[in-house]
């Protein structure tokens, strides 16, 4: 069973490291402090997440053995590379869309490679699943990137961080401990990057960190859905929840300041996520009751008469 204190310490450490690294890398950019310097965000968040994963002893195997290995070895570095290349070489909008589209098209196949979900017997279902995954990731990745470029605040990063944290908890409650644990350092590192961006006194480009966050969220949800016991509807709601950050902040708060906007967006995204986690916790408690309770307490539940007869004089 996971040790909550150890997990908490690791997450806090990862968050601080993410915050510190993003600040340090951004400072090296001089005037471009968290401005156009997307590279700083991607490198800082990735380095912090990798450290957090190592502390939690979530190791990958080479060649990749299962879905989680492929996520850590192929999918995450691919997203990281795309966002770095896109920002470093300042790719044109069309090229960015094409590259992200190609990456989206391959992610599902990479994660499900060699599993029963890609068996020749269920070829139609496999193709439909992969198409839905590719279209879903492609559209959401592009929408969130556009949103990040337009708003230039930390709201989306906070939202993605919260969605990743909820994904981790949901996958763990579904029974896949390692898969869920892998989400936690990613959430903490992204939160560190979001705090660094939030503290910045100028508009920040969060496009790179957003891309990394959405691919991480997608990958973990696919692993949870197809290999763990995460229900489809839960995975879809959590994946789409960050889009709610698009909801205009001034509808929630009459005159939101630059500092208030990210928090308003976070609150909007938090509502469906909180409902989903609460529902999953109820299901988890119901499923775990027979495993955790001893035979005596089960007797109490199932046959109160038997229990009461013991106390008869």
């Amino acid at each position, binding site marked *: *069973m996971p040790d909550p204190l150890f997990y908490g310490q690791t997450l806090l450490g990862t968050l601080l490291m993410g915050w510190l690294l993003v600040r340090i890398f951004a400072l090296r950019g001089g005037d471009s402090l968290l401005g156009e310097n997307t590279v700083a965000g991607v490198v800082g968040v990735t380095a912090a997440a990798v450290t957090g994963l190592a502390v939690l*002893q979530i190791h990958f*195997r080479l060649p990749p*053995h*299962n*879905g*989680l290995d492929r996520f850590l070895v192929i999918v995450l570095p691919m997203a990281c590379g795309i966002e770095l290349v896109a920002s470093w070489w300042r790719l044109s909008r069309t090229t960015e869309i094409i590259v992200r589209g190609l990456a989206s098209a391959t992610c599902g196949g990479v994660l499900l490679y*060699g*599993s*029963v*979900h890609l068996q020749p017997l269920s070829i139609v279902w496999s193709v439909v699943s992969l198409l839905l995954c590719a279209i879903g990731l492609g559209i959401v990745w592009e929408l969130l990137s556009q949103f990040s470029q337009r708003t230039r605040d930390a709201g989306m990063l906070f939202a993605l961080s919260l969605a990743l944290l909820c994904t981790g908890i949901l996958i763990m409650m579904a*029974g*896949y*401990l*390692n*898969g869920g644990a892998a989400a936690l350092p990613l959430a903490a590192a992204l939160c560190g990057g979001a705090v660094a961006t939030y503290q910045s006194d100028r508009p920040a480009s969060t496009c790179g960190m957003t891309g990394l966050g959405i691919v991480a969220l997608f990958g973990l949800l696919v*692993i949870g859905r*197809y*290999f*763990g*016991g995460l229900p489809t509807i839960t995975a879809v709601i959590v994946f789409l929840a960050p889009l709610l950050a698009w909801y205009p902040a001034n509808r929630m708060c009459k005159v939101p300041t630059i500092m208030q906007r990210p928090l308003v967006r976070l609150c909007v995204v938090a509502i469906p996520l909180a409902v989903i986690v609460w529902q999953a916790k109820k299901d988890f408690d119901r*499923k*775990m009751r*027979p*495993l955790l309770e001893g035979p005596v307490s089960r007797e109490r539940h199932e046959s109160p008469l038997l229990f009461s007869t013991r106390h008869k004089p």
Partner: protein
Amino acid sequence: MNRIFLSMSLALVACVGMWIDRSAQAADEYTYDLVHSSVSFKARHLDLSWIHGRFNQVEGTFSIDRQEPSKSTFQLSIKAESVDTANVGRDEHLRQPDYFDTKQFPTIDFKSTSAKIIPGGYEVTGDFTMHGKTKPITFNLMGGNEIEAMSARRVGFSTELRLKRSDYGFDKNAIGPIGDEAIIIIDCEGMRK
């Protein structure tokens, strides 16, 4: 001349055919009888007691060569999804990637590579594949006597294997309360018409 050549060729083909037929008849092919067989396992829980379970879906074939026992072959394929420990919640957990990862590795397979006769059975060596990792193992497969019952010829075997889950790439973090070593008990019947 042609006639002699044709006759010789026909005789040669007939001899080869008879030889193939004879060697084919020498090995008896049996299929795994799911009704009268079981593949079960047990593992330590908290180092206090044993948790027992079984796999409900198993397929296999045995080829027993009575003349040359070293040519006998044994093959077994267990559907990991069919794990059953008499607790639905625990079974679901065992199917997860932390344990059997049944969506990635749907079967546990054994295929023999050599066999030799020992008193009361066979010493079988072969490749055991579990959780996507293959390792050679050797064990004593006791039994092998054939009887005729229920309109089929039947042969029975039993064995007990001790495996370390960590040898097969199971996650070390998931080994914790359940012991690393698992004992697999195979009692099976093969049948042929």
